[in-house]
């Protein structure tokens, strides 16, 4: 299967390893991976702050870049959700949107639902805390979530658990927000950091060595707090965990 990589702007600039790991995972699972170089940003930072006018040109650019691919895969729940759930208001009925929307996936849901992978071949002998990033969880429904009374499922946890030796630790609040929230992280810095530090404390109490998740933005915020506090935690995106495990 031919897959176009949709690499979030901050992954391209600050966490290229996550993009490389994503490509490696997809290739190991039999995909042909291409990277459309004209992409820049999905527009989420502007859109979430209410600046629809600044986000709209980026949405159109996204369609320019990604139209025609049968699968567009992104190592970010929030960027994927931006395209699938928040572009309709910005695109004024652009006829290309339906197809692009149907083709755009977050990495774990692509591996689980499209490639149909239940067990990943590989070993990752660490105690891992899974941070459930909010947009992936509640907008893409990557897992059932703690609020709703639905049959439990978790596409991300299932893939991680399938790795040999990986132990997912049990958090006291499995899906509380980390406090990043885009501009919230600086506009409401005090509460944002209190939320983040509470997450870190939860992971430490649960015995995590590595904290992972589908969104680097969350990990950047939590990682920044952990490094400042000297907390003994490593932060790896799920793509990096999978790529390391699969070799």
């Amino acid at each position, binding site marked *: 299967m031919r897959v176009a990589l949709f690499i979030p702007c901050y992954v391209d600039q600050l966490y290229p390893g996550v*993009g490389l790991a994503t490509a490696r995972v997809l290739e190991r699972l039999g995909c042909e991976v291409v990277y459309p170089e004209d992409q820049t940003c999905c527009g989420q930072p502007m859109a979430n702050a209410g600046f629809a006018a600044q986000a709209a040109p980026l949405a159109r650019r996204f369609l320019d870049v990604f139209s025609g691919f049968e699968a567009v895969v992104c190592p970010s729940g929030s960027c994927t959700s931006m395209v699938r759930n928040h572009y309709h208001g910005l695109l004024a009925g652009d006829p290309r949107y339906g197809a692009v929307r149907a083709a755009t996936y977050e990495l774990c849901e692509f591996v689980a639902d499209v490639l149909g992978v239940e067990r990943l071949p590989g070993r990752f002998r660490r105690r891992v805390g899974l941070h459930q990033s909010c947009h992936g969880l509640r907008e893409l429904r990557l897992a059932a979530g703690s609020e709703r009374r639905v049959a439990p499922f978790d596409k991300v946890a299932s893939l991680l658990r399938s790795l040999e030796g990986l132990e997912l630790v049990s958090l006291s609040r499995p899906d509380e927000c980390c406090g990043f929230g885009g501009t919230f992280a600086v506009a409401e810095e005090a509460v944002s950091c209190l939320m983040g530090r509470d997450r870190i404390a939860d992971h430490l109490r649960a015995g995590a060595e590595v904290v992972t998740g589908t969104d680097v933005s969350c990990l950047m915020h939590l990682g920044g707090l952990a490094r400042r506090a000297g907390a003994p935690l490593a932060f790896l995106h799920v793509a990096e965990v999978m790529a390391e495990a699969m070799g």
Partner: protein
Amino acid sequence: MREGHAERAARFAADEGRARWHDGALWAVRQKRDRLAEELPEWEELRERAAQIKAHTRARLADYLEEFEREATARGAVVHWARDAEEHNRIVHQILALKAIRRLVKSKSMLTEECGLNAFLEARGIEVVDTDLGERIVQLAGEPPSHIVLPAIHKRREEVGALFHRTLGTEAGLSDPTALTAAARRHLRERFLRAEAGLTGVNFAVAETGGVVVCTNEGNADMGTSFPRIHIACMGVEKVVPRLEDLGVLVRLLARSATGQPITTYTSHFHGPLPGGELHVVIVDNGRARLLADPAFRGALACIRCGACMNTCPVFRRSGGHSYGFTIPGPIGSVLAPAWDPLAHTSLPFASSLCGSCDDVCPVRIPLHDLLLERRRQLVAGPGSISPGKRLAMLLLGLALRSRARYQASGWLLRFALRHLPRWLLYGPWNPWGRQRELPPAPPATFREAWRARQGQGRKGGGGG
């Protein structure tokens, strides 16, 4: 710009011990909700039904209110209509003044908070005693409630003890909740028995039967309306539901969502007054028709005031209800507030990380986090509310991201700064990110550059490194 949620929240969060205690108390209520929701396999279906009942009712609100008025009047109630807070207060006062009533007891009504009823009546010589324990506590403390269901959740037992010592004469240092509640029981019993009128809110008004339903755990609505012969029930226009059978859905959702109980201790159905007494129902608009006319936000009228969104909100738990500066705090408050005063509450839609947890606990499925985002869009699209600095930053960011060349140049500049600027400059007071967090690392190459290098080396599939 004037002080908003962020500044007040920062003060609340600065006392980390208190913030964590407050957070823990509300998280426990959220967990109780979870346990009770888990017991009902049909929970999600109930939520959907409740949303449909409310949506249907909104589209025929005037018809249902007229039916309610007809049925209530036929059973002996007197129905009044108030366009706004001022008129509501005057109507309530008039009912009391007509009989020279000076002593009123009240059970919880967020509507009367919204209208500022207590101050209005007290200025006219009427003693108003809030009888819900949490409401009485904040009334004695001279504060507004900080939560619509748990008004005094922000107060520690020692603080309540000190307050009661000062105002009720309990012994100094007494902080045991059971003993303090017993003291309040004695104190309020006296008020109930000498009250001349009782005022309640309305949880649901049933059009089919003309009844008003009031839910309490303490029994204060019943104490307040079974002894005085005048009962005044105040309701917003959106409280009406079509039929008794609709209560089956809503009553099953309300207490489970609010406090994690299957039902409140008392669910009282008032159809007409006490024999020889009077029941006055005051129906209030106060901006609700205007909200109904707004296609973006009319869904917020479904709210049944359960408070579940507050309990689940990680921001509310760590900032406290008072940091919102509006009668109703938390996610639903932040959606409603701009409808009442667009200029005063511009910080509220940004008092959220848009995590979406509120949507998933709302018993009537209000898409709260989508509505918060829409509030942001409208603030940006309108004049004035957003700081010029923020507008400029977003404009520049948008421009930078629209061209590959500008994007790469900006990215290069950012990484260069992260790698080469001295720490004192990077982490100066101008950098709010850096107050408690390290900045992200600055890799020498971008993904694009690394990818090109990788492809250039002829790697096509598989392989490590």
